[in-house]
């Protein structure tokens, strides 16, 4: 099939950037979206132009690297799918496809479609862990965890840190990302000891990074490639309020 691509090109953080049109011919519908972008890039390099830069690695929807805003939606039109898992068969001959980077103050553009998501790492560094050193821990089966709780913690832990939630949110809020980690660790007995301190620190860091507030529009869950539930945000709010009222910080 033949397509027109409208791709955001931006030379660097300080460049203004803008859309550039590319005509693509003979695109095989079995290709993945990123393979289609590879074809474009090979053509550009052969013409002596710079390829479109974009992050990607696993191409299996698990590393969270890929991050394209396609036709106004993070990761494109398919529900529960990262950009790398999107295949060209969902598009039609003659379509025009618009491709942009994540747009959020806390995710500055580095080049073309590549953005800086290190704010997420700093939020984890603020408290997204259980404080145990290597060695000297109890046997893994010493503390049973009800299957329901373990499964729920797993559902939260499936977050791949791609940032689609932020890109989908009109306020560029990182609530779903933070809530997923807070909930995972608050659910498990291993994480309960530090739960109050953790939520306070992570939320403080989230604010410091310049993410917006959550106004419950729920676009984040809808666009999340791992379909992480909105309920975790409610869970985090409860964690936060409890922490504020009964803080362990003395």
């Amino acid at each position: 099939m033949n397509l027109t691509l409208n791709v955001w090109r931006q030379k660097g953080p300080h460049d203004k950037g803008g859309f550039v049109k590319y005509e693509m011919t003979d695109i095989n519908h079995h290709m993945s979206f990123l393979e289609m972008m590879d074809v474009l890039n090979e053509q550009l390099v052969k013409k002596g132009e710079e390829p479109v830069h974009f992050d990607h690695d696993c191409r299996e929807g698990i590393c969270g690297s890929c991050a394209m805003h396609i036709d106004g939606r993070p990761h494109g039109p398919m529900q529960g799918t990262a950009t790398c898992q999107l295949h060209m068969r969902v598009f039609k001959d003659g379509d025009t496809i618009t491709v942009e980077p994540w747009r959020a103050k806390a995710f500055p553009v580095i080049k073309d479609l590549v953005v800086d998501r290190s704010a997420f790492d700093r939020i984890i560094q603020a408290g997204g862990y259980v404080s145990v050193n290597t060695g000297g821990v109890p046997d893994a089966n010493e503390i049973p965890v009800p299957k329901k709780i373990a499964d729920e913690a797993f559902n939260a832990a499936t977050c791949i840190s791609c940032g689609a939630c932020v890109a989908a949110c009109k306020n560029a809020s990182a609530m779903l990302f933070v809530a997923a980690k807070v909930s995972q660790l608050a659910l498990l007995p291993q994480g309960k000891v530090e739960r109050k301190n953790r939520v306070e620190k992570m939320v403080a860091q989230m604010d410091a990074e310049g993410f917006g507030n959550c106004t419950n529009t729920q676009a984040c869950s809808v666009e999340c490639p791992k379909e992480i539930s909105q309920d975790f945000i409610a869970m985090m709010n409860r964690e936060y309020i409890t922490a504020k009222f009964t803080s362990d910080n003395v």
Partner: protein
Amino acid sequence: MNLNSRIPEGPLAEKWEKHKFNVKLVNPANKRKFDIIVVGTGLAGASAAASLAELGYNVKVFTFHDSPRRAHSIAAQGGINAAKNYQNDGDSVYRLFYDTVKGGDYRSREANVYRLAQVSVNIIDQCVAQGVPFAREYGGLLDNRSFGGAQVSRTFYAKGQTGQQLLLGAYSALSRQVATGKVKLYTRTEMLDLVLVDGQARGIITRNLITGKIERHAGHAVLLCTGGYGNVFYLSTNAMASNATAAWRAHRKGALFANPCFTQIHPTCIPVSGTYQSKLTLMSESLRNDGRVWVPKSLEDAARIRKGEIKPTDLPEEARDYYLERRYPSFGNLVPRDVASRNAKYVCDEGRGVGGTGLAVYLDFADAIRRDGRNTIEARYGNLFEMYEKITGDDPYTTPMMIYPAVHYTMGGLWVDYNLMTNIPGLYALGEANFSDHGANRLGASALMQGLADGYFVIPYTLGDYIASLPFQKVDASHPAFDEAEKGVKDTINKLMSIKGKRTVDDFHRELGNIMWEYCGMARNAEGLQKAIGLIQQLRADFWKDVNVGGNVDELNMSLEKANRVADFLELGELMCRDALHREESCGGHFRDEYQTPEGEALRNDEEFTYVAAWQYTGANAEPQLHKEPLQFDNVKLTQRSYK
């Protein structure tokens, strides 16, 4: 060169305990005087960096990814082995050790493998304490499954995301140390050379991938936790950016590369659909528990299927060849990876392959669905079926899946001793980057185990032995050795940029991959390997004359990143062929056409080849020098693997 493996004396089961007692210790107050460089934040790197920082060392950790959590380890699906024997089904440290040595076709070190099995139990404890959400049973205890043909259930898992959950555990431990300031984290920073001062590893040269700045970092020891080199084949199940550059540049500086030809080809991957294809997707091995592998019996039926004249479901039972069940009645579809892969190649070579390219076989669930019901199959494999449908557009509930083998894992890597130190003092290799524990074939769910064993439970002990022998001086990054290494890196980059040829980097990479797959893939022979060596040399020469990189050096330039990596693959590929050529036997993933039993199974030559082949670099276009580390088996008896 004398390859001292430093395997401790004494009975197998006591070696590690004794060794831990005998290694030198660094006093806690002195650890902060030492700077440790860790390259890589996958399971091996993240676990090592976190554990060493907890002990008090100053750690600098590097990754070319934008976040430590994106390392290739994240993609592992199936699970991680540990000899917990929670299922009371007869597992033990000794059984895990035995299975691993046998699975590796007797080309690994007994002592290393035994230690791996011993510390496997600690790994699970550690991960659970970090909040890793492993699968659990209704009673709240951990669930296990049997994996990769193992006869006991020793595999721990987190749905199809075990790698991600384990890596997030290690990443959280690492993040905690970043917060304390004990770890300094460098993301989007790629190591491009190793610096030796007086023969000892004393630092690295890196490129900041955003600004293009070349930087130097000094330390008392350098740990390479940089993963495997499967992408030498261009198409593999590895993440796109996985590469061999860190290990290869260390090799050029004198580190020996061991068993480079030992690569693993995984039997159940989604077949190639066209030349645009960028990578191959693994379908979990667990599918072989219920799926039956077949191709049409006759060439004519296969041809009609390929042309789309008939559908696989049209073919009656008697026209199908369930070749694994036919050839291996006792293991059937569950034969080890190397055997399953090779047999798929044979039937496709005969012309009985299916799919558009003829390079695919069926994995059929129709019987399982009839027997257990669609719901049961959906509960077991639902997410995998969905993933398959997303990629191929076919529904595996109604038409058989198509699969074909793909490069998956590299057992070879930098040679290391029992302490995980390479032959260069102060240079260590952990995880898939080293060669140590899997011999000629890795068993399912063992790579995650090895990466975390190395990082959490081996290096924290063994590093001290070397560090304790050093003076407390800071390493000086203004030493002329740093100038020289930095100049070398810049020269290479400038050269790559200045060629301005006609072919893209990917074009060269794709061609290298084709050569490797054709001649150094599932089955190899002397004639083909010799031919491949010539072809690679020619391709390398062309690369340095005709590659087109484009862009600038002082900005994000992904073509340049790739060019650096492909330049190294073009050397490593040749070494792999040389190693495969010299090893005149078949073992594990290394199958030489000339060396097979009358039934077509791998035929080892224990008399002559029970050794580790460790290669020394002697120059880009010079023949490498072979060193042998003999392997001694005191505890297991070498037998012919049989899965009949």
